[in-house]
């Protein structure tokens, strides 16, 4: 594959107060690839994900060292507009978190806060996003009903549509299927497969099979460090380190 580098972390350290959650992370993320971050709870994989769109800024007493690049831009540079950054690097959370608004307004939200008022443009973009999220056929008759009436799986796909409506370049997914049943999970996984044609996707998951199914590259984290990174196929079939092999076969973690 001849994919180009989209994001990268260089010597990244992250602290919650005095606790160091990430130790010297170096990792590269490529366009049109899905990178999975795996590892036991508390290993720092979600923390890294949240460093990539600076969601960790919201935590007081936290501190970042090192660099994160989006294309050529260093996102922790003081001149960077965090709000604009988050439009380029979208995020889907662990639990579906639609707003208590209509389905339409949920998807249109990101555009509205960008000051877009053109109704036909909004309608078009909402439809495209819902189609990309494979939700359109299920909700096209009830766009103006509350989003909270959707099932968990539909809500999560709505959240993906909402994130995509602002046309980000990178999509961060923090255990996007962990609160869903197997069928809904399967839909999300198929969706990820489609979406990588358009986006750079970085996904945190606790589910080994899921990482194996959806990702091209897998990084295994333990205690805030990267233990091993490789092509997913290689990492799952011929891990270089015993620690990795123990984890992916379920002997620890």
């Amino acid at each position, binding site marked *: 594959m001849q994919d180009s580098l989209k994001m990268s972390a260089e010597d990244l350290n992250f602290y919650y107060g005095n606790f160091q959650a990430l130790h010297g992370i170096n990792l590269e993320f490529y366009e049109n690839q899905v990178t999975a971050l795996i590892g036991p709870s508390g290993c720092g994989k979600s923390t890294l994900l949240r460093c990539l*769109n600076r*969601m960790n800024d*919201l935590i*007081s007493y936290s501190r970042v060292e090192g660099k994160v690049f989006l294309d050529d831009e260093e996102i922790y540079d003081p001149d960077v507009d965090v*709000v*604009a*950054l*988050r*439009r380029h690097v*979208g*995020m889907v*959370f662990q*639990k579906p*978190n*639609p*707003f*208590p*608004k209509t389905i339409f307004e949920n998807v249109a*939200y*990101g555009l*509205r*806060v*960008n000051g877009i008022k053109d109704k036909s443009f909004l309608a078009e973009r909402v439809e495209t996003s819902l189609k990309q999220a494979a939700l359109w056929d299920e909700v096209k008759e009830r766009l103006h009903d*509350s989003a*909270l009436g959707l099932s968990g799986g539909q809500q999560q796909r709505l*959240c993906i549509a*909402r*994130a995509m409506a*602002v046309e980000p370049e990178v999509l961060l997914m923090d255990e996007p299927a962990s609160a869903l049943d197997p069928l809904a999970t399967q839909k999300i996984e198929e969706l990820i497969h489609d979406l990588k044609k358009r986006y750079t996707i970085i996904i945190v998951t606790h589910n080994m099979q899921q990482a194996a199914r959806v990702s091209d590259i897998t990084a295994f984290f333990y205690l805030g460090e990267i233990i091993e990174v490789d092509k997913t196929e290689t990492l799952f079939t011929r891990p270089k380190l015993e620690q990795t092999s123990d984890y992916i076969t379920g002997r620890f973690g």
Partner: protein
Amino acid sequence: MFGIFKICAAANGIALAIMLYFLVSRGWRAINWTFLTQPPIDSMTKGGILPCIIGTLCLSLGAIAVALPIGVASAIYLHEYARPGRIVRLIRLGINNLAGVPSVVFGLFGLAFFVVYLEMGVSIFAGSLTLGALTLPVIIGSTEEALRAVPDTYREASLGIGATKWQTIYHVVLPAALPGILTGAILGISRAAGETAPIMFTAAVFFTPSLPTSIFDEIMALPYHIYVLATAGTDIEATRPLQYGTALVLIALVLGLNFIAIIYRSRLRRNR
């Protein structure tokens, strides 16, 4: 042990029931159409209490018009923006103490500051500001409570799409907190409606047959009217039914407002 707790809890309901029983049994005969739609006559021994009802409504609405914007803004600052520290602790200390100030002190403050120093005179305006100050801690408290109840996932979702902090608060957090905020506002109104001391120096007068035409007019008010009839009326004993009747109207107003708040809250909760 459990039994004692149960008795204590039941005592609340019993106290309210006894109070209502007394008010209703002694006051209901006084209540009729004339009573609700006419001003008092014959040195307030006959006639109605319309100016008092209007006055209390004006003061309550005025108080909420003052306290709601200031209170909600304060709560948003404290809960969404302020970083924990000495200034926030100081502000909270101030709010807690404001809540503990006796209402008669608010009355004297209103008299000294609004009526005299700012030359507003005894008026709806001065009374509303005084009652507003009294209601402020209630509004701030209930608004903060409502903001706390908004899940952080909403904030994260909004910020994660690239909304600014203010857009997040305005478009997502406030709408979600609205039921709680409005419930607090209504409870604040009902508190303000029943207060006597803060308005007796700032807004209410012994007697005025005319209805207010501007916010700078002085007015009659239900709680103060009861106080006047019961302590300084021309014939205290003969006007007992009027006193109970007035009290009944006041408590109906207050309970009615609380009831609306409860229904509104439960309806919005069900819609979640």
